[in-house]
């Protein structure tokens, strides 16, 4: 299947990488820092810091304070209005609830909510949960049963934390970056130093060179991602519901796509300085648009179809479907069509633009 020359060259690339102790150490650092961060936060976003001023101190207000404190999403600080107001302005608190002296049943109690409007995303959540808190206190006091009750039920019936959502996307994003650095950056460097020219003095063909780098980098990337995955499963208790074979199958196909795109970008870039902005132009929009940190469905409607077609999107959503939902390769056949399409496109542009006579000179 592979020639001896291709395998020897691939082995050499792996040897070069393995002997580069510094980059080896740094490539292990990222997954360690990543798991460290989530290990401390338990994989959940931090509770929102709010201040509470109880000016009334009657039975009703004390009951209200108790109920607020029970909520996991809040970290409550009590104190005087002046103190807490200062903390709010400094940004230590996101909101400040003031229970006025006249907070009682007869006065259909009014709460004051002081906010830092720049924290837009949290403001809505705070208001909603305060509203529902007030409603439940009201019912308790009036001793009425709620007319409607909302029961949250996860249709997929499995514990889903933010970290579970995040991990497959992060893996896909790392896969993309490692591959583009592995083929694109190296290609530019080997060309600049005249190493490519030296290689093409010998009877190897451009195809042999591309196959060797792809083989070597695939091997390296799979090891790197395995380390991260092992840390995530071992330390962060990530649930990978689907088969690991399917997951690594997608990783291998993704590595192929991004390595080919790396070759293409490396052929476009004429200098070592140019490859960085060119690579960023490719990777940065995908970091935002490919549903790595938040779902694509939260993007504006117009952008969604484009976002879904991006190579990182098809890889990340396939990996997420396998890891989070336990999907089989067959179940994600729609994504697989996208992956195969990108494999053809990326291989075509890689071989079309990799002109060794130009690249080597």
């Amino acid at each position, binding site marked *: 299947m592979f020639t001896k*020359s291709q395998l*020897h060259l691939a082995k050499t690339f792996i040897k*070069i990488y393995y002997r580069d102790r510094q980059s080896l150490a740094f490539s292990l650092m990222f997954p360690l820092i990543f798991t460290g961060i989530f290990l401390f936060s338990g994989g959940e976003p931090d509770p929102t810091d709010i201040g509470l001023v109880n000016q009334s101190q009657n039975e009703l207000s004390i009951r209200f304070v108790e109920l607020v404190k029970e909520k996991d999403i809040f970290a409550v600080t009590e104190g005087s209005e002046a103190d807490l107001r200062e903390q709010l302005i400094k940004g230590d608190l996101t909101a400040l609830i003031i229970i006025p002296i006249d907070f009682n049943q007869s006065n259909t109690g009014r709460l004051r909510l002081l906010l830092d409007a720049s924290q837009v995303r949290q403001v809505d959540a705070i208001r909603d949960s305060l509203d529902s808190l007030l409603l439940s206190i009201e019912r308790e006091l009036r001793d009425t049963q709620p007319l409607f009750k909302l029961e949250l039920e996860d249709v997929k019936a499995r514990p889903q934390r933010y970290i579970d959502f995040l991990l497959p996307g992060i893996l896909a994003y790392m896969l993309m970056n490692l591959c583009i650095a592995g083929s694109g950056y190296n290609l530019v460097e080997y060309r600049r*130093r005249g190493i490519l020219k030296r290689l093409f003095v010998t009877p190897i063909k451009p195809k042999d060179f591309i196959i060797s780098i792809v083989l070597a980098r695939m091997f390296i990337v799979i090891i790197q991602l395995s380390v991260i995955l092992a840390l995530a499963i071992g330390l962060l208790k990530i649930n990978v519901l689907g088969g690991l074979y399917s997951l690594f199958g997608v990783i291998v196909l993704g590595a192929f796509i991004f390595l080919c795109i790396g070759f293409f970008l490396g052929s476009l870039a004429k200098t070592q300085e140019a490859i960085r902005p060119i690579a960023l132009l490719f990777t940065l929009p995908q970091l935002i648009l490919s549903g790595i940190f938040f779902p694509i469905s939260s993007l504006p409607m117009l952008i969604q179809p484009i976002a879904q077609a991006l190579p990182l999107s098809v890889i990340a959503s396939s990996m997420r479907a396998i890891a989070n939902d336990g999907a089989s390769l067959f179940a994600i056949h729609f994504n697989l069509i996208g992956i195969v399409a990108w494999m053809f496109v990326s291989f075509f542009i890689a071989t079309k633009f990799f002109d060794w006579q130009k690249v080597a000179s």
Partner: protein
Amino acid sequence: MGIIKATNLEKHYPNPENPLVTFAAVNDVSLDIEPEEIFGLLGPNGAGKTTTLEMIEGLTSIDKGNVFIDDIDVRKQPYAVKKIIGVQLQSNEYFDRLNLSDLLLLFASLYATSIDPKALLAKVNLENKIKAKPDDLSGGQKQRFSIACALVNNPKILFLDEPTTGLDPQAKRNLWNLAKTLNAEGMTIVLTTHNMEEAEYLCDRIAIMDQGSIIAQDTPQQLILDYAPEPPEIPLRGNIEDVFLALTGHGLRD
């Protein structure tokens, strides 16, 4: 019958100042190099020596003309040609973190052949550097290693592009001796240089290039008879380099 036959080679590049106009880096160059000779391409910088060499080696595309090496058409079968030639380039950088042995084995694998790195390094006097990295070598050692790399496929023809540029006199003489030894074993050698002494000492025949064209071609002796001015009345005994070598000795300094 020549082992290298180049006829009417041309290479045009866009002019860097005005890309719409091209200039001829190589213009109507024809060469007929005999087996087992040492042939020198001489000329000032930018004369087109390297471009000519790279067209013959199949490294640069040929705009016009033909090259046959050992009766193989370079334009039609560049890979067949690359199998029987060895090339030393002007720049000799290699992959990082590989030692001389790793690199020689790598190059050998690209020719799908096997070698004994130690024996090959002994040939160029580097057998005790087998575990060294190219960056640890001196200029002369680097050049000799680069020749070792060009020998992994036991080539019929060896191309050397300015092999002694930047070397001290000892290293230069050492490299000349290596070239002579390889030639005596039956290897055809084609080299470029702008060192006249090198051309005179080493080459059986010389072609002098300027501005993309060959302006003279013959044996060094004949070229001297044809073009050199009359000698001065009292000739000096040798030159400063002979003095330098007599005082510092011929031993290699690296």
